[in-house]
């Protein structure tokens, strides 16, 4: 009798101490950066049949005791004006860069700079994925950080993570950083 009671108590305690906090992650970046592939890779889904995102995709993943609601918003120029509709209550901003698309490094830098000035994203930790590291033309994560001017960011935590979303390489490491930066808060 006593043991049953104790068992019940410990279950209750576990439930209370593990509220499974929900986090809202916002995935942004230019078209063809690899946002949807990254999202699917996080959710362990098939990544070979991705299509360009018209609108947005959302998936929930468990990680480090968090329930992560990841919002992947289309990156086409015409959709970028709608990004702001998704800023509210964002816990971590994830910005994806195609490391092999050197021609558009300026463009992606400008978009990111604009995001960092947004009021609703103030103090929100920033995780940058330097994606497609497997491509021959790809530049390193350090060069991307340099190009985006990440070192000038003073008002928030930031991290750059090189990754290959199609192989799942580096994806989890970035996510771990994101969860840690939330716990610190």
């Amino acid at each position: 009798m006593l043991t049953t009671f104790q068992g019940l108590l410990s279950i209750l305690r576990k439930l209370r101490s593990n509220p499974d906090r929900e986090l809202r992650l916002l995935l942004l970046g230019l078209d063809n950066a690899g946002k949807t592939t990254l999202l699917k890779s996080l959710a362990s889904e098939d990544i070979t049949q991705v299509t360009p995102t018209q609108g947005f995709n959302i998936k929930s993943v468990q990680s480090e005791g968090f329930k992560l609601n990841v919002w992947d918003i289309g990156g086409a120029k015409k959709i970028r004006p709608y990004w702001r509709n998704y800023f509210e209550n964002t816990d971590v901003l994830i910005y994806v860069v195609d490391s092999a698309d050197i021609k558009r490094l300026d463009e992606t830098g400008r978009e990111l700079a604009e995001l960092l000035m947004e009021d609703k994203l103030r103090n929100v930790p920033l995780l940058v994925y330097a994606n497609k590291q497997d491509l021959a033309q790809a530049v390193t994560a350090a060069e991307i950080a340099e190009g985006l001017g990440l070192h000038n960011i003073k008002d928030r935590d930031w991290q750059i993570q090189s990754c290959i979303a199609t192989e799942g390489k580096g994806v989890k490491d970035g996510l771990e950083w994101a969860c840690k930066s939330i716990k610190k808060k």
Partner: protein
Amino acid sequence: MYHYLWSLLFWYFRPLIKWFLHRTTQMCELQRICYGEPAGARRILAVEESLRNSRNPDIKTLVLYLDGVSDRREITTKSERGILEEAIRTVLVAKKINPVAHPDFAKSFGKCVELIWGYRQLCIHVEELRRTAYDADNAEHELMLLKLWNLLMPHEPLEGRVTKQWQDIGFQGDDPKTDFRGMGILGLENLVYFAQEFPNAAKHVLLHSIHPRYGYAFAIVGINLTSMALRLLRDGSAKTHVYNAVKTLPTVRVFHQFYCYLMYEFDRLWIESKPSNMMEFSTIQEKFENSIRILLNNPKTVFRVNISVDNV
């Protein structure tokens, strides 16, 4: 649980019921289907189920053989006749059917086999096209892309291979090559087929896509609908349509036509829904897919692109 019990009962009682019906009707299950069910999806789906559930060793071998030839895409207009005759002969012998007394059976059954394994072969073919990535160094691919432009925008010459103009027909940036992604050359072939075979319907849809309030990205939505068409083909939902739509060996044409129907009908639903912006795409696409699945659940369903538009 119920499902398990049902399959257990099915496993034990199916032969019994079949034996009883065989005795009383003097016909085997395949004959009863071919005579009893109306031509098209109902008959073909029933024959397919019967063959797949058969425990007759000869029929099992036949099914394996047909799976093999269709997986290797060996059913052609040339080889088809021999393959079908072989299938019919196997069943006539295994089921002791007298072809003289039942001349219609062979014909009807042969048609079913042609459609069932033609569909399987179609899935393989379409998958090959999907896996072929768009390659800017491949002249054929490039020509097809330019063809799409010329079909949709005949009065507006393209200023260059890489240009902002591509966005006018709904690509994301200045170079469409990255937009095909996981759908590969299949996504492009579908768009070209739509613009070529249903020029008026395609113009009608393209005009809607540049609507100032309800506009959307024509090509990108088109590529997403290729993905939807493929899902329906792969999970077998599209069988109803294919089995009703064609009378001969299904080819990639029937898939393209199915896609054209989806393009046209999706556009209609989109405009009717009066979406506030492009961000509603996933919701409306989901709603659309559900409605198509419901239609495909009806064995009488066959889709036709609204012809009236194409005669205007």
